[in-house]
Each structure stands twice: as structure tokens, then as C-alpha cells.
């Protein structure tokens, strides 16, 4: 019966509604699988809450089989642990929040519950979403379900691992510089970073406020798009949330992409990109050509500047966003201290991990007087130039195609010793955060280690329709191959 777990979310929903399976039985299988896999993909499991909700839904179904059923009826969803869940511990994988239980839900959680989704647990991640491998977690590294020696990617590694390991049917991640798309790529699943300001950030523990977006991770394009449609809504509680834009994403689940114009930046396929990655991307380009798309090479001259600009801005915002973790109001407070200043120091020293401290220091430095203009302000200017560069491309192209990462999936333990190298591997994902444009990551092949290779598709702001169509058609073509 465990092949049930190989089904897509929309298939499971149908089976539940048709009363072919009980929601409770699906949950049994999932929790069993989580234990069996032992990939450390979850920090907290919500078994009691999930079974309770399952019972409620099942009863509703028995009482009124024809009644209204939400878009996620009975579907088990995993939530990245930096998204606040009322009454459920939310740690952001940091010791400093090891005991934090929010009294409020993030807006996306309310939206999922409204559509009858079942939250089964909080997924592991890089501490405060800072990292590219989910190894900086206070709760230990997440394993890649396809091969446990490899990382799951980061920072939403737990969510990607849980989806790829069939421990849930869909998951939420957050993407500040590629944190949804890159782990989806490393785990061979689908991840979407929506246009900035389409999904509410209320209740997302902020890393880089001007870059953060919550988005879906799922086993296929349809499931990912359906979850996106649920969580994307105008929210008056988030001032950066945009009203009056097209959010009916599911209507773009069509494979008609004839004449779609796709640009491939030549800088993204240079010699510095791993040969296996390059090979797979080239194959993908051929698939799109066969589907009737117009694929052309294009240029992104500022590519070398995106990583420095990104890390300057993200760290600056993070240094301020993480100030509230001080031992005064919630979370960890150091045991022995003398006076206020010492309490701050000891709490933050004990509570934060190395990578988080590095970024707080970097961010504090670029904002300090005398350096603000030279670093932070300059990075903002570069960000604007990058935006302009993409704006120009989108006048010509509907979609930009790119690898997810210049490298293939690394093994656990290989990355943290060289943070600069790790930062540089974000080169193809951070532009979407700097510009705000949407990006989708879908698997497009495997490398020499039999690990998946991911491809990214970008579109102009609020033009998710273009990348959804392209991804859906590509996925369908792949199944036919």
C-alpha cells in the first residue's frame, strides 16, 4: 500500500474524496516513512494535530460527501521551520529559538488550513535560512533521500528532502537567494519562487526582507502550482503585498508553448559551469525547441556582480532582522550573565551558529557609518542595474532559461569549510531575488553520480504564467520521452 505515497497530491486528494482511502491511513504511511527514511528532514512532527485535523476532515466527508472541499483537502503539507505556526514550535533551526512557540499563524498557514490541507510537521533547514546545504541547522544536516551521502541543498533542504523522500505530498519553503529552487534541484523535485510581493511574508521569520518569498515545493509542476495558488493572496498585514494581480496560476497548466521566446544567457553556460550540468541544460534546450519554442542566446554582462550585491544586501537586512533575538522576550537566554549587556552577548554567542554570526558581522559592517556608501549603497545601485538588465531581456524574451547551480550536488561535509565558494554557487539563483522576478526549478536530468540536475526558468514580474506553461510542457514532454 505504500505506493500510495508515490502518488501526486492531486491524485491523493481525489482518492480521499472518492473515499478509496482514509486520510488517517495516509498519515500512518507518511509518519512511518519519515521514521524509515531517517533523513533528518523534520525538526518537529505534528502528529497529534495532523490526526486531529484528519479526523475532522474525514467526519466532514462522511457527513456530507458532496459538501465543499478545499483545494488541499486531506493533503499532508510540510512547513519550513521559519514559518510561524500557532501553538507549534517554530525554531528557524536555531538554538536561539529552540523553545519558541508562536501565538499566531503565518498568513500562508491560515490559507493552507482554509483549503483543508493538513500540516504534518516543520522541516529542517539552514539556521535562519542562511546556507546552501541545510548543514548549518542546529538540529544537524538534512540528508538527500536519493543518496544519503549527499546534501539536500539549502536552505529549504528539509522541505525538498521531505517531498523527494515521499514524507509529504507538498511543502512550503522560503527563498531569499535560491533557497527553494536549489534544494528542489538537488533533490529532483519542483520548486517555485513567486514574484516578490505575491505571497504574504507575514509570519515568515525574516532573513532578507526585501528578498524573501515563501513558495511551494512539490513532486510535480501541477502540485507546486496548485499550492502556489492557495498561498498567493493579497495580505493587508504585509505592506509589500500587492493587490490586483493575476493569481489564478492553475489555469496556465497547459502545454501549449509554441512560439514562446526563451533566452539563454551565454554567461550561464560558460566553462566554469560543471560539464554534466551544461550537458543537461543543452538537452533541455533541445526539448524546448522541439516543443516549438524560439530559443536564443542572450547576454547578462553583470553576472559577476550579482553574488557580491546579494550578500551585501541580504546580510545587511539580516543583521537588523536578527537583532530581536536577544534573550529578553522569548527563546534562549544564557544562564549566567552579569547585567544587560552581558546577557545580550552571552545569549547571542550561545544561540547563533557560525554562519549566522558571519552574516550578522558582515551585515553590521556594511551598514556602519563610513562604510554604508561604499558597500550597502553601492550594492543597492548594482541591484538596480541588474533589474534594468533583466527588464531589457524581458522585452525580447518570455522566459530566461538557466541552470540552478553551476555545480552538481555536493556531499555532506564538503561545503561549509569554504563559505566564499558556497556563496558563489548561488550565482544563478540570487538574481531572481534581487530583481523580484519569479523562478521555477524543475529536474532536467542526472549527473555522473546519478544525482539530479535542475533547470531554472525565469519570467518578468507577475508573469508566472510563462514559466508555469514552459515547466508544465517540459515535464510532460519528459514523461513521454
Amino acid at each position, binding site marked *: 500500500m505504500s505506493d500510495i505515497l508515490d502518488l501526486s497530491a492531486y491524485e491523493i486528494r481525489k482518492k480521499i474524496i472518492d473515499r478509496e482511502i482514509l486520510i488517517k491511513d495516509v498519515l500512518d504511511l507518511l509518519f512511518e516513512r519519515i521514521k524509515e527514511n531517517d533523513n533528518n528532514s523534520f525538526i518537529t512532527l505534528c502528529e497529534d494535530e495532523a490526526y486531529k485535523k484528519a479526523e475532522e476532515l474525514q467526519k466532514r466527508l462522511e457527513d456530507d460527501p458532496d459538501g465543499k472541499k478545499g483545494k488541499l483537502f486531506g493533503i499532508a503539507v510540510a512547513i519550513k521551520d521559519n514559518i510561524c505556526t500557532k501553538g507549534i514550535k517554530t525554531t*528557524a533551526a536555531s538554538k536561539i529559538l529552540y523553545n519558541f512557540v508562536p*501565538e499566531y499563524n503565518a498568513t500562508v498557514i491560515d490559507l493552507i488550513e482554509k483549503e483543508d490541507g493538513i500540516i504534518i510537521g516543520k522541516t529542517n533547514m539552514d539556521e535562519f535560512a542562511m546556507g546552501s546545504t541545510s548543514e548549518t541547522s542546529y538540529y544537524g544536516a538534512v540528508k538527500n533521500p536519493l543518496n544519503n551521502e549527499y546534501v539536500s541543498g539549502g536552505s529549504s533542504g528539509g522541505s525538498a528532502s521531505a517531498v523527494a523522500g515521499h514524507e509529504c505530498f507538498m511543502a512550503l519553503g522560503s527563498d531569499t537567494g535560491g533557497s527553494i529552487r536549489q534544494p528542489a534541484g538537488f533533490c529532483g523535485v519542483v520548486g517555485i519562487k513567486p514574484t516578490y510581493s505575491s505571497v504574504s511574508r507575514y509570519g515568515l521569520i525574516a532573513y532578507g526582507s526585501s528578498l524573501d518569498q515563501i513558495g511551494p515545493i512539490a513532486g510535480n509542476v501541477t502540485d507546486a502550482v496548485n499550492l502556489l495558488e492557495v498561498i498567493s493572496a493579497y495580505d493587508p498585514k504585509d505592506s509589500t503585498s500587492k493587490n490586483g494581480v493575476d493569481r489564478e496560476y492553475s489555469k496556465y497548466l497547459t502545454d501549449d508553448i509554441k512560439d514562446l521566446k526563451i533566452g539563454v544567457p551565454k554567461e550561464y553556460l560558460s566553462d566554469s559551469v560543471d560539464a554534466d550540468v551544461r550537458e543537461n541544460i543543452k538537452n533541455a534546450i533541445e526539448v524546448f525547441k522541439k516543443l516549438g519554442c524560439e530559443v536564443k542566446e542572450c547576454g547578462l554582462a553583470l553576472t559577476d556582480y550579482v553574488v557580491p550585491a546579494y550578500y551585501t544586501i541580504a546580510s545587511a537586512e539580516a*543583521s537588523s532582522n536578527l537583532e530581536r533575538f536577544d534573550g529578553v522576550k522569548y527563546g534562549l537566554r544564557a544562564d549566567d550573565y552579569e547585567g544587560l549587556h552581558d546577557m545580550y552577548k552571552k545569549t547571542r554567542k550561545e544561540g547563533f551558529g557560525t554562519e549566522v554570526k558571519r552574516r550578522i558581522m558582515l551585515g553590521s559592517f556594511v551598514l556602519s557609518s563610513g562604510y554604508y556608501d561604499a558597500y550597502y549603497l553601492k550594492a543597492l545601485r548594482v541591484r538596480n542595474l541588474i533589474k534594468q538588465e533583466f527588464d531589457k531581456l524581458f522585452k525580447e524574451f518570455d522566459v530566461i532559461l538557466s541552470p540552478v547551480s553551476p555545480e552538481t550536488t555536493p556531499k555532506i561535509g564538503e561545503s561549509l569549510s569554504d563559505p566564499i565558494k558556497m556563496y558563489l554557487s548561488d550565482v544563478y539563483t540570487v538574481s531572481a531575488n534581487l530583481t523580484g522576478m519569479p523562478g521555477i526549478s524543475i529536474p532536467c536530468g542526472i549527473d555522473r553520480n546519478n544525482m539530479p540536475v535542475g533547470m531554472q526558468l525565469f519570467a518578468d514580474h507577475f508573469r508566472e504564467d510563462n514559466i508555469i506553461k514552459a515547466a508544465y510542457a517540459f515535464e510532460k514532454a519528459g514523461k513521454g520521452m
Partner: protein
Amino acid sequence: MAKEYEMVIGLEVHVELATKTKIFCGCKTTFGMKPNTLTCPVCSGMPGSLPVLNKKVLEYAIMVGLATNCDITRYSKFDRKNYFYPDNPQNYQISQLYEPICRNGFVNIKSDAGEKKIGIHEIHMEEDAGKLVHDSWGETSFVDYNRSGVPLIEIVSEPDMRSADDVINYLEKLRLIIQYLGVSDCKLNEGSMRADVNVSVMEKGSKTFGTRTEMKNLNSFKAIRRAIENERERQIDLIESGEEIVQETRKWDDEKGKSYPMRSKEDAKDYRYFPEPDLMPIVIDDEWLDKLKEKEPEFKDEKVKRYISEFKLPEYDADIITEDKKMADFFEEAISLGGEPKKISNYLLGEVKRLLNENNTEFDKINLNPLNLVKLIKIQEEGKINSTIAKEVFEKMYYEDVEPLEYIKEHSLMMESNEDELKDIVQKVIDENEKSVEDYRNGKEKALGFLVGQTMKVTKGKANPGMINKLLKELLSDGK
């Protein structure tokens, strides 16, 4: 010959805006509630919470800017000011540094040399912090976030003031403008208006300013005046003894009449300001600005002129009534209800002021109803009560908001105007006070007053004094 010195003073004035809810969340701003009962994830700095600007705050800030002749910034932004302190739950304050909402304004104040212009450098919006409560016997401190997120504007003046008088006049001017706009009650003693004073001293006529200090913890006009005078002396002493003035922030201790250094420029904090990414830039269009301009009320100076021309009030009366917006509102309402301007004014300047002083309170704290005052004056004019009774009824109205006619009837305070009844009483008084009668007849006019008083006593103050006079004179001459 001793050198002459001149002070250069600039002010940073914080004003708490009287919005119903906080600047970035929906929590109420009510003062004096139980600790942490007016809080939510936003104003207590919970992870994942986000600020949303209360549009009323923006409106109020712009109104103050327009009334102080500022340019309104059409594309304004919020910035984060980062510093760690437990009363500041996020450990950053959302404020405005780079693009404040108002710039380049001025107000005119009175000074010895006539009107004087005080420049306003900028006005910006920001959130207030919570309050720390220290346990005096233990080692614990508590924090109350009820005030966290209460909206403030900071009005930064140019260094255009030269004396404590200038400072007081400037603050009074700001207070009146802001009170008239109805955007704050501006009470120094309650903290809804707070002033930090930057003072430097230079030789008279010099073109270069001296090194300035910033004085904090000034909770009354009196404290401000004393602190300025004290700082002037302190700085002059340092200059004359050849010592350097340190650029620093000082704390005024009003009880001791001294100030103490808080922190110097060397250990000034680096606030690492940067644009607040959680809030969108504020774009202000002409249409909205025009609407706000239309809403501008009549300010004190205009009111004084109108009271003199329209109500024929003496300038003195008009000036005092308009010192307090609430009193001016009362005055105008009373007139619209048929009150006679000078009579209303007499009550306000007389009895009302007396009772306010006696109770050490302010006009907005009392329950006096303008309609009742108009009625009382009318009853008195109709000769139904005399001034003694009127005073008694007025006090009842002031304290207990009683309806005057009902009260007068209930307590039978109506004047005795029945001539026959009163005649008997007067006759009785004459009979019982032979000495005074004799005095009167011997030409001592004063004795008549005594007899009037005696009659009043018998009637418990209810008799019409004019009638008593008339009857006394009649009866006394009859008996001649």
C-alpha cells in the same frame, strides 16, 4: 571688562500623536492601562511580524508640516535605527532619516525685538518605545510594551533660538498649533510632548557657534528654563577658565538643579540606519495634500482677531480664551447657543480659571457644559437669582454637571421677589437693629449695607438685593 556671551539653541521636540491605534499595528494607544494589555506580535517584536503604516499618522504629520510652513516630501521613506535596549522589542526603531515627511518650515514667535522666525529643519515620523519598570528591591526589570509603537513625530528646529524665552515661546507656539490641529494634546508633564535642547555659547557677535551639548529629561517649561540658564553658566565658566566644552548628551536633574553627562560623542552609537524594507515608500499626491490643506483649522492668532472684531471682546480676554483650544471651542459653542460673548468670557476668565487653579487641573479635564452656562447667565439676567446663588450653582455645574434651573428649583434658590413678604422681613430687621437704623438716620450710609446684609441672612441669600434696598429706604423714611 567681562566678555558678553550669546546662546545658540536648537530643539528636538517629540510629540505623541493622538491616533486611536498605534503607528504600525491595530493596538490601542490608551494611556495608563495594565502592562502589556495593548500589545500584539507586531508591537512586541515577535518573529515574522510585519509593520503596516497607520495612515492617520501620516495625515497628522503632514498637517503639522503644513501648519509650520514645511515642504511636504512627496516620496518619503522609513528607515531602521538599530540599537539594543529592552524597551525596543525589535532592537531597531522604525524612524525616518533619509527622506523625512516634512522639511524646511518655520514658525513665528514673539520676542523682545518683535516677531522672530524659528526655522524647522525637518519633521519625521517614528515609533515610541516601551517602558522599563525596575524592581527596586530585587534584581529584576520588567518591560511594558503598551507604549511600544505609539506614534511620534520629531520636530527638529534650526539653531535659531537665543534665549530661554525664545525656547518657551517656540514650544508654546508649537503646542498651540498642534493642539488646534487636534493631533496631540502636547502635555510636557504627561510626556505627550518632550523636548531635547541643544545649547552652545559663543561670544556676542561671533559668527562661529561654540561646541554644543544636548540636554535631556526636561519635563516642564520651568525645568527647561532652569536647565538652559544652568547650561549657559556651566559653559561660560568652562570657556572663561580656558577649558574645553565636550560635545555630549547631558541629563537634567530638576530636583538638584544640575545636569550630568550621559554619553559623549566618542561613545556615540552607530545606529546603522538603512531603508526599512518592510514598508513601501510613501507617495503623496496633490489631491490628498489639497484636502488636508482644506481641513486646516482657524489658529489662535486668527481667532483672537475674530473674537475682537466679531464678538467685541477685549484683546486680553480673546488672548486668554484662545490659549487653550478646548476653551475656545467651549466659548464658541456657548455663543452659538445664544450666550452673550462678554458674559461667557467673564465666567471663563473668572470662575473657571479660579476653579482650574484651585484644583490644579486643565480645561479638557472638566465637565462644564456650555448650554448650562448659557442658561445660568440667562436665569441670572432675568433676576431670578442673585450673584451669590449664581456662584453656588456654577460650582455645582462645574463639578457635577447639574442643569441649573432644575437645581435652583430643587433647592428653592429662586430669588424672593414677593414684595409683601419681603416687606415684613425688612421691617423685622429694622426693628431688631435699632442702632444701625439710628446710624443711618444720622447720615451713615454704611449702615444701610449692614441692614441689607442682615436681610439677606434671614432670607438665606435668596432675596433680590435691589428690592431690599428699595424697601429699606422706603421703610426707613416712613418712620422719620
